[in-house]
């Protein structure tokens, strides 16, 4: 009987141990991105724009061409790369502080221009790398190092639901939100991400998948407790699903 491998390490990834904390979801999303690059045969034309934040070192774990944008500017830099070479596949990988706070103008306008880029958006409701400060996505009452008494909406406003916001923009072709706290959700997340990749490949417009992600160390929770928090607190505030599917955007098997 012939032995066939049913699982292999993604070819697009370097064989390295990441510096991400135990229970962090960056590793899962990196793997999904790399698997889809492999499956869709995109390696030779992929350029990834890495952000400022924990995943600033993402380029170390991928074999693809890459660069680091200034904080929040990844969609602008990705715009410049894609416009220079429209046949390339351009990804922007960003966290919630990067994308929803300092980079809000860049992400909204990249979507409005219908830039044919794909954004991988990690929403872990805080600034992980700098030590767990409040983010625009932190929930009301969430304790962080800069909201030590819990986020008070009267003082500092309400969380931003990025997927819902971007889905109102005409240039946005595919917007979805996924979570990674259960195996079935990871499978679903991969489907969304593949669809987003395909949206770019078909030249339909801007695509983004938001990943509700765990940050156990900065949440001061075990990895397991973090998964429960995602289920019980985050998903009710940030519902999962597809928020924008423009005509022509299709599932990829």
């Amino acid at each position: 009987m012939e032995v066939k491998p049913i699982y292999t390490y993604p070819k697009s990834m370097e064989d390295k141990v990441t510096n991400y904390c135990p229970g962090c979801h960056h590793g899962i999303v990196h793997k999904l991105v790399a698997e889809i690059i492999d499956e869709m045969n995109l390696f030779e034309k992929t350029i990834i724009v890495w952000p400022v934040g924990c995943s600033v070192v993402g380029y170390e774990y991928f074999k693809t061409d890459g660069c680091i944008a200034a904080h929040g500017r990844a969609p602008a830099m990705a715009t410049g790369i894609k416009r220079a070479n429209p046949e390339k596949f351009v990804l922007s990988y960003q966290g919630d502080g990067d994308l929803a706070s300092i980079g809000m103008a860049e992400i909204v306008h990249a979507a409005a221009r219908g830039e044919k880029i794909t954004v991988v958006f990690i929403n872990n409701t805080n600034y992980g790398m700098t030590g767990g400060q409040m983010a625009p996505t932190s929930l009301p009452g969430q304790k962080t190092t800069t909201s030590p008494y819990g986020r008070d909406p009267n003082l500092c406003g309400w969380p931003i639901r990025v997927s819902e916001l971007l889905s109102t923009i005409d240039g946005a072709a595919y917007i979805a939100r996924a979570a990674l706290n259960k195996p079935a959700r990871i499978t679903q997340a991969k489907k969304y991400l593949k669809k987003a990749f395909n949206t770019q490949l078909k030249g339909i417009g801007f695509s983004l998948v938001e990943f509700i992600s765990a940050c156990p160390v900065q949440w001061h929770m075990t990895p397991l407790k973090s998964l429960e928090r995602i289920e019980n607190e985050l998903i009710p505030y940030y519902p999962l699903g597809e928020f924008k599917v423009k005509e022509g955007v299709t599932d990829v098997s």
Partner: protein
Amino acid sequence: MSEKIFMKGSEAIAEAVIKAGCRFFYGYPITPQNETPEYFARKMPLVGGLYLQAESEVAGINMVYGTASAGKRVFTSTSSPGFSLMQEGISYISGANVPVVVANVVRGGPGLGGISPAQSDYFQATKGGGHGDYKLLVIAPSTVQEIVDLVPKAFELAEKYRTVVELLLDGILGQMMEAVEFNYDVKPEDLPTPSWALTGAKGRSKNLILSFNLDPEKLEINNLELNKKYKEIEKNEKMWEEYNLEDAEYIFVAFGTVARIIKSVIEVERKKGYKVGLFRPITLCPFPYEELRKFVPQAKFFFDVEMNLGQMIEDTRLSTLDKKPTYFYGRTGGIVPTTVEIIEQFEKLMKEVK
């Protein structure tokens, strides 16, 4: 191929950029340089190029960063407040060794300031406007023809050294119409894609464009390499003009628009029998220190005139080392000093020095 065309500076620069083979422009509207992006908006689609209006200068310079990282010639133009917003991107681009050409059509500041011509961004241009140990290669043309001649050179220098080149202009150069001649027409397809560009890791290991290093030992090495490059530029690329300096005893130092006014002053003073001349730095960074210093023995005094409250004068004095009196006169806020005004100031100094 070359015929004389009557053109505004702000349009000549755009035409020069296109003729230099650049097909990518990103920018954001700001007075007094709007004719430049407007020219690109009209012309780029006709030559298969891209004009893209950014949501801000902050985003614009990062689009420039992206296209330059992909190995293409790219250009942006702005004016002072916009240039301040670009400093973040320019620092990153410099740290990542990516070639970019930017123009700053300087207007009066600080803050929102005004929209009239000024030279008050000299410090920002030459002493590092953003964070970190980096320098720009700063070129200050003085006529519309000189803009046309220096644009292709700016791209060549940017690419040769993988560095940011700034064209430092002002609203007068932008608004002035002069007859210009273009003696080049570079085809973008003739420009090679550099080996370091982000084009996808096909048949090679990955290319990375970064200005990031958490290891201080490695970051220091990176900065020492940058510094080596700046020393090379200083050795090879200084540009300046010597005007009526052979016998000059009274030496004006000025750049850009002011240098043109000084030439009229010199004409008047020479007729009066005074031996006056002009030293005009064309590269403001690297500044031609030694080249100006050569005139110390013959000079009775140096007179630095600028459209600011005294910025280049610091480099002028580093050249003369105050071995001869080195004076300054400047107007600010968008005021352009007149020939008559400078003559008055000069003749006052003549009396005082005697």
